[in-house]
């Protein structure tokens, strides 16, 4: 498995040891961000759509119990089995028991960040069930024994040479082959065999519609359609926040999702499932795993609007220059940094600080999550409730006191200025992280002094 860093700083530092790779990663994602801009700007009503989407989500969250029940009732009437899981363990147990009941040995799985969040694959592996991730990017990271570094582009951190090497090892492609078309063809052939032999398919859910009791899954590759339509059992796993009230709302979200994610007008396949094919089974697992807790946090409820487009990652200047694996949570980037502290405040305490609060994430978000405001708010909670960065806490306390006392503050300014005029070796040492690669400003006369002399 890829290295699990203790903090974002640690991971980012490692990532930045290779500046060329940083440039490459930054450019690849900026390219996606630019495509998103072009797509958004082609829709005059873009901002209105975002507002409507945000309001639909706010409404749904304010009646979530009602819509979940309505969805269950409709889905059951459609012949879909509905399961409820309060946490990751229950989710994994439910999926396992369905698979065991059908004596399933081979599972194909399309992209689902929820199953990543719950750690489903290792759980099924432990019970001798083989799970093959069928999204090409996910298959690449699975073969590499890594985690996705991005929720839409799971292998965005991998170079084609690395993919070529992996495929040579696992899929018998030619040594040194790096052509994306050649490699994709090899994966197609390999995964086709997996689709055909699979006893069950697991998929994620992009939207579940309460009024119709069905759900929509979006892919470009068609792996959901291959998996779910070939296997006798289809299990769809979803967080409870994926509910929307009506079919007509799909129009709003499908217009926003792919444009925000990759700059496409829509994904190649937007697959709507409402009933199992005769003789087959369809299951839905509704998962809480901390979501009702987040729902109860006024300041952070809106994070449940997320439709997992990944736009906040593509635009985040820190994500682009630190890579998805530098984050300590399954979902990296800005959205992960506001979802994760609610799950484990201490483990993920560095994440809300992995930001300059530039606000670009909030402006690209198709469902108007105030991401950077939530980062700010998590920071307050982390500094208050944990022992994160005690040195900073102490210095902020002292500085805050000084700022309440003009005389002391001005004196400190004078002392500081004198220090900065002192010997270079005293100023530029390992303790001064600013000075590692930057000069400090050179104090001249303060404005105070100038003003005193010149005010008349």
């Amino acid at each position: 498995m890829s290295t699990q860093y203790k903090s974002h700083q640690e991971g980012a530092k490692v990532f930045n040891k290779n500046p060329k790779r940083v440039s490459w990663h930054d450019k690849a994602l900026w390219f996606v961000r630019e495509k998103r801009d072009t797509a958004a700007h082609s829709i005059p009503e873009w901002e209105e759509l975002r507002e409507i989407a945000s309001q639909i989500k706010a409404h749904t969250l304010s009646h979530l119990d009602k819509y979940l029940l309505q969805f269950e009732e409709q889905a059951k009437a459609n012949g879909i089995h509905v399961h409820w899981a309060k946490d990751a363990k229950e989710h994994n147990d439910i999926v396992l028991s369905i698979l065991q009941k059908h004596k399933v040995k081979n599972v194909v799985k399309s992209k689902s960040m929820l199953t990543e969040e719950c750690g489903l694959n290792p759980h099924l592996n432990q019970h001798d069930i083989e799970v093959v991730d069928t999204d090409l990017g996910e298959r690449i990271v699975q073969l590499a024994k890594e985690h996705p570094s991005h929720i839409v582009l799971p292998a965005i951190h991998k170079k084609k040479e690395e993919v070529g090497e992996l495929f040579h090892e696992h899929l018998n492609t030619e040594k040194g082959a790096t052509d994306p078309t050649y490699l994709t063809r090899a994966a197609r052939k390999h995964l086709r065999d997996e689709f055909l032999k699979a006893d069950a398919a697991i998929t994620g859910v992009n939207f579940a519609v309460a009024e119709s009791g069905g759900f929509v899954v979006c892919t470009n590759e068609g792996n959901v359609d291959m998996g779910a339509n070939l296997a006798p059992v289809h299990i769809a796993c979803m967080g409870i926040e994926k509910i929307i009230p009506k079919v007509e709302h799909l129009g709003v979200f499908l217009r926003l999702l792919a444009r925000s994610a990759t700059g496409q007008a829509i994904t190649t396949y937007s697959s709507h499932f409402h009933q199992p094919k005769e003789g087959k089974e369809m299951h839905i697992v509704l998962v809480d795993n901390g979501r009702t807790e987040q729902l109860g946090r006024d300041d952070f409820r809106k994070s449940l609007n997320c439709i997992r487009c990944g736009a906040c990652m593509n635009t985040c200047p820190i994500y682009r220059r630190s890579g998805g694996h530098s984050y300590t949570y399954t979902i990296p980037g800005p959205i992960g940094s506001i979802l994760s502290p609610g799950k484990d405040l201490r483990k993920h305490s560095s994440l809300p600080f992995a930001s300059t609060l530039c606000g670009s994430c909030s402006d690209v978000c198709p469902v108007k999550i105030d991401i950077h405001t939530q980062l700010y708010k998590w920071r307050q909670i982390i500094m208050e409730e944990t022992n994160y960065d005690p040195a900073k806490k102490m210095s902020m306390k002292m500085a805050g006191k000084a700022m309440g006392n003009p005389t002391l503050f001005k004196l400190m300014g004078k002392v500081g200025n004198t220090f900065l005029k002192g010997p270079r070796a005293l100023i530029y040492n390992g303790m001064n992280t600013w000075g590692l690669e930057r000069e400090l400003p050179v104090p001249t006369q303060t404005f105070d002094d100038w003003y005193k002399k010149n005010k008349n």
Partner: protein
Amino acid sequence: MTAKDKILGNIKGLGLPSKSLPLVPIFDGLSDDKHSFFFDALGTLGVEVIISDNRDHLHQLVEERKKEGPVYSPIEELGLTNTLGETAMSDLHLSVIEGQLGVAENGAIWVAGDDLEHRALTAIASHLIIVLPYQKVVWNMHEAYTYIKPQENGYGVFISGPSKTADIEQSLVKGAHGAKSLTVFIQK
């Protein structure tokens, strides 16, 4: 207490104030001519578009393509509705299916999966032809959902172009799992 009771109880216990549900307008189209916008969108997606007022052209097209490999279609008039086992489906060179509605803004075509004998026909063949009546084109997704009724189909899908991936260094490759090429036959 079951998980369901617990989850619903948690939500109810919060007593969240109700937020109103907004109305969704059906926004205007993006130009004056939805058909040419639709065809352009398909072109951008790498879709071959054939517009014809002669149904024979479709028959000719299918006859041509038969030379390349096994072809299947649930469209009765094409005379290919022989039953296919799912294993045999994996060797399909081409499937020819019907589309119900085209969406101009994004080039997506709604396919009602239960009209097909096998749901997997939307993705499994190496190549795909979708037959769509000329008049069945709407502007955008809002309009589309006023016509299609996904809940009346166990499975339905908007397809916009050949299957694709850009998971290796963002290089676009057509034919990830599903069709490597898509031809849309527009029946005038």
